[in-house]
């Protein structure tokens, strides 16, 4: 008998493959609760509610009995990072499968105890009952059923028709605390004897500390310690106010070297294109037969650096006990952060516990991880007391990683009939991720500031198989006969970049969809019809048709108003989203209405999906109309909300979302589906309103005047 090769064995779904032990996901407490322990973290996207729904459904328990455990490296499954709109796919499928198997294990145990066949048993709110009024429960049986065993691929979750919670708009479990002002954020958490820390960071980019006088800071009431290790300097105080005052004193008495030269913010595309870079061919497709190209059209699109700009400055708490350290963080990847801390501290990972607590929305890799190392370093001087460190607004806006600037060139070869026969898409950009825990060197800010510093971690791009980075969504979904997609990743990084929602997806979709709109217009064809004619994917066609119907495409032309369409399938493998934007462009461009159709496959919590799509659409509108990280040749100058404005209540468009029901399809995340389509829909609507192609983001009065000048 031959054993089947491991590769042909059925695989466990989602994160269960890497974390197969059932008890690491699900435990029954003695008092009638179910503890569900995911490795994914709540970042305001509502994931813990969606996961609770899935668990309650498969186990047949009331959702009120489900307690969602905050992830910690001490106990939780390692689910990597909470990013890329993958949590429902990875964590949701794992929990669904694990719960289905656990339900079956308990049914078998109940059958033995009650002497009733499994098929005659029924589960209602955790009580397992059979004919003749016999019953037991998960909680009664929990003592004799061990879940310390691996999941098996055979378990069968319920068919969609038998789910009662998944697919329903259950109210989010975290919202009441937040509207009642109950402490829930890491910022509001205190530990006994907790101290406060602050870190001194230079105004000039990558400047070195030349001289520091500590005398005035030492005289500040409450001071516990001044920590200095190379260019890393911080204070620890009994009070937050004391830490702020000591920091202020230290700042006055610090002398810094001149910094590193930054690029010219008004010539970013030129700069990106001449930097040393690594070229990758992302995809190539060759047409059979002779190319029939008779002419070529080429366009360039740019996107600026964008800030995550969380409303809360990043915050962390750390406490040492001998050579072991405990960290409380709002990082998106607790195990990855632990790995980087281990590298910096030269400690075994077992001596570090990283525990998640909610922060404000992060929208990608902000300073959550950086501030965690800050807290760990400052807490070394705290004699075993916990130290809470919070960044300033200014540091959050200038020292946290940014979403990378991009230059994108697309070239289309047209045949004699004006049909697209060739397509070339080229990207110049820094890498779109420099998250911790992925490399042999740490990616944390303070690691580069120590007396014995680690080199700056140059941002990279995830492979296309994982959705790509700068190249995300650069492969067209349209049926062009040939194409060549290339990505130049910069090997220098004077402005620090890492993951921002959609990575390169927003830039690439902006470029492709703007160009498609222009080509349709040049061809004298309606943009909806043009897209449909080039798309063979039926679900792609469905979202475009739905949004066109809902927006009564194409609304009658009014002076100063315009309508535009944008479409993408996020990462080419995730949610489908089509958007019609209505803009008004008299003096400044404002977005009046966004009509959106989205297909996320199975929607675990439809209202949660709509909330994510609406939020993504409004955030994208803010990126498009307002946002651009500003800098001179030495420093980031957009260091406040005044210099980095975001969309305000009075500027927010009306947003309508139509969710296409697909209960039988694999679930896709919704958090990043709208950004690219919204961006391009707005740009195309601006053309419809004003007759100008906006190819450089953000679209402001100044950028439109520049575009008009280029045309004339």
């Amino acid at each position, binding site marked *: 008998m031959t054993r089947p090769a491991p590769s042909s064995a059925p695989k466990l779904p989602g994160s269960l493959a890497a974390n197969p032990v059932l008890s690491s996901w699900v435990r029954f407490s003695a008092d009638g609760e179910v503890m569900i322990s995911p490795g994914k973290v709540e*970042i*305001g*996207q*509502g994931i813990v509610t969606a996961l609770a729904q899935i668990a309650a459904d498969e186990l047949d328990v009331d959702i009120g009995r489900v307690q969602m455990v905050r992830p910690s490296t001490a106990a939780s499954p390692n689910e990597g990072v909470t990013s890329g709109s993958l949590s429902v796919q990875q964590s949701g499928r794992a929990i669904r499968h694990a719960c289905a198997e656990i339900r079956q294990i308990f049914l078998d145990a109940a059958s033995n105890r009650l002497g009733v066949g499994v098929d005659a048993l029924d589960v209602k709110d955790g009580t397992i009952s059979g004919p003749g009024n016999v019953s037991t429960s998960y909680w009664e049986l929990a003592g004799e059923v061990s879940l310390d065993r691996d999941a098996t691929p055979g378990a069968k979750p319920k068919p969609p028709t038998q789910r009662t919670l998944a697919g329903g*708009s259950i*109210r*989010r479990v*975290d*919202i*009441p605390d*937040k*509207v*009642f*002002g109950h*402490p*829930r*954020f890491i*910022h*509001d958490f*205190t530990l006994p004897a907790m101290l406060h820390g602050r870190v001194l960071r230079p105004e000039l980019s990558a400047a070195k500390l030349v001289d520091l006088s500590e005398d005035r800071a030492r005289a500040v009431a409450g001071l516990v310690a001044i920590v200095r290790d190379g260019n890393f300097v911080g204070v620890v105080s009994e*009070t*937050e*106010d004391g830490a702020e005052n000591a920091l202020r004193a230290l700042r006055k008495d610090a002398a810094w070297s001149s910094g590193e030269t930054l690029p010219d913010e008004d010539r970013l595309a030129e700069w990106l294109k001449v930097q040393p870079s690594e070229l990758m061919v992302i995809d190539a497709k060759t047409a059979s037969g002779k190319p029939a190209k008779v002419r070529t059209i080429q366009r360039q699109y740019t996107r600026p650096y964008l800030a995550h*700009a*969380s*409303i*809360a*400055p990043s915050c962390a708490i750390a406490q040492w006990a001998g050579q072991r350290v405990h960290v409380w963080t709002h990082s998106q990847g607790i195990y990855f952060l632990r790995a980087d801390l281990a590298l910096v501290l030269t400690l075994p990972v077992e001596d570090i516990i990283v525990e998640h607590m*909610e*922060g*404000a*929305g992060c*929208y990608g890799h902000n300073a959550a991880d950086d501030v965690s190392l800050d807290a760990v370093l400052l807490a070394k001087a705290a004699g075993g007391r916990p130290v809470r460190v*919070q960044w*300033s*607004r200014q540091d959050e806006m200038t020292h946290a990683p940014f979403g990378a600037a991009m230059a994108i060139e697309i070239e289309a070869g047209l045949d004699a009939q004006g049909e697209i026969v060739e397509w070339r898409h080229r990207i110049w950009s820094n890498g779109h991720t420099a998250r911790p825990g992925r490399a042999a060197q740490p990616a944390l800010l303070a690691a580069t500031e120590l007396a014995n510093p680690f080199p700056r971690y140059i941002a990279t791009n995830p492979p296309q198989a994982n959705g790509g980075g700068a190249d995300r969504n650069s492969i067209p979904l349209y049926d062009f006969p040939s194409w060549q997609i290339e990505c130049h990743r910069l090997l220098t990084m004077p402005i620090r970049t890492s993951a921002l929602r959609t990575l390169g997806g927003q830039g690439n979709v902006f470029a492709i969809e703007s160009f498609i709109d222009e080509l349709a217009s040049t061809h004298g064809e309606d943009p909806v019809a043009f897209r449909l004619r080039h798309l063979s994917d039926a679900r792609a066609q469905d979202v475009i048709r739905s949004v066109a119907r809902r927006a009564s495409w194409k609304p009658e032309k009014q002076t100063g108003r315009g309508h535009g369409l944008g479409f993408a399938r996020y990462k080419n493998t995730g949610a489908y989203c089509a958007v019609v934007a209505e803009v008004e462009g008299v003096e400044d461009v404002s977005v009046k209405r966004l009509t959106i159709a989205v297909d996320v496959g199975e929607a675990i919590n439809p*209202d*949660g999906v709509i*909330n*994510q799509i*609406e*939020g*993504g*659409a*409004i*955030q994208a509108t*803010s990126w498009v109309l307002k946002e651009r990280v500003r800098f001179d040749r030495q420093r980031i100058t957009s260091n*406040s*909300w*005044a210099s980095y404005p*975001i*969309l*305000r*209540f*009075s500027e*927010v468009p*009306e*947003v309508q979302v139509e969710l296409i029901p697909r209960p039988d399809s694999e679930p896709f995340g919704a958090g990043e589906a709208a950004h690219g389509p919204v961006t391009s829909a707005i740009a195309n609507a601006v053309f419809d309103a004003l007759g100008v192609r906006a190819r450089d983001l953000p679209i402001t009065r100044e950028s439109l005047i520049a575009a008009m000048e280029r045309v004339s």
Partner: protein
Amino acid sequence: MPLTRFRLNGAETTIDADPDRSLLDILRGQLGITGPHFGCGTNECGACNVIIGDHAVAACDTPLWSVQDKNITTIEGLGGTHPLQRALIAEQALQCGYCVSGVLMSAAALLMRNPNPTGEDVRAALDRNLCRCGSHNRMVRAVLRAAAEMRAQ
């Protein structure tokens, strides 16, 4: 230090601290009132808004001396029974929720002054509150829903 006296969420409160310190610092530090959130420290985001009299103000930019004898309400002072809180839950009007305590204060102050606001009134009243998740429209709907409920009472 001179003493500063004010009413905080209905309770007489006396603080012995430097009168130039910010109200936010005193609330979150000495008093352990963590509902008002620190966002910027420069009155640009609204996350720390509290109600003084019948106006929402940024506690980060309010010196302690200026609140002598004033009535101060924080989100904690709404208890769990304010129609705005019910409406925010009903409309699922937030994502991360860090800005919500400040938004609630701006909205509650608006409803004290204007029980029958239009959508535009609400947007104007919340215009100094920043929300990064894009929950604006849901929040506006929640405020209008709460206003309607309060008028019906």
